[in-house]
């Protein structure tokens, strides 16, 4: 069936470095993508979204890149901070159904 997956289950970076978290999706009809951050004991927190008519969107210290040709999504975090340590999920939908989530990538920021 259709699914969203992540390449790396755990990513460890040094404080101040840039982080890149990758995600592959398989539903070619998906047109809306979201990145969420989840800290322990909390619900997922919206970070940034992108629609299929764009290939890049920037927020505060975060950038999402969308490559529809290879069905790949990435989240870039600039100047990673200890507070960025969490599990990050990508999610996608074609607008007719609820979000499909990947299994998550744990980001560990080393001081």
């Amino acid at each position, binding site marked *: 069936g259709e699914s969203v997956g992540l390449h790396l289950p755990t990513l460890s970076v040094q404080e101040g470095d840039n982080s890149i978290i990758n995600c592959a999706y398989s539903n070619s009809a998906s047109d*809306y993508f979201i990145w969420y951050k989840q800290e322990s004991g*909390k619900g997922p927190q*919206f970070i940034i979204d992108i629609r299929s008519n764009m290939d890049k969107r920037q927020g505060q210290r975060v950038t999402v890149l969308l490559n529809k040709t290879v069905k790949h999504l990435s989240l870039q975090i600039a100047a990673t901070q200890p507070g960025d340590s969490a599990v990050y999920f990508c999610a996608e939908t074609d607008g007719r159904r*609820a979000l499909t*989530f990947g299994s998550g990538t744990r980001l560990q920021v080393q001081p």
Partner: protein
Amino acid sequence: GAGVSQSPSNKVTEKGKDVELRCDPISGHTALYWYRQSLGQGLEFLIYFQGNSAPDKSGLPSDRFSAERTGGSVSTLTIQRTQQEDSAVYLCASSFEGNQPQHFGDGTRLSIL
């Protein structure tokens, strides 16, 4: 309130009992979703309410699971005759419409003994 509110935050019950989980969405949000998250896993879709339309129940794992949304606002997820495999965090989310950012509550952690 400012965000999605879920209650209780924790629930421990014996196998075979029924449980009800409550979700108060963000005011004005027409779409409401329930997900389940097992330990260390991603989110599994359960059910989706959009306005007055019939809910999308395609993610409910068995007929022991049901959900209602009264008055287009508060929703309750009911699990009958709970089993140990029902142990998980149950998350609720809401959005303005179906294709807008979903905002999540902090979930109900359900433990079946």
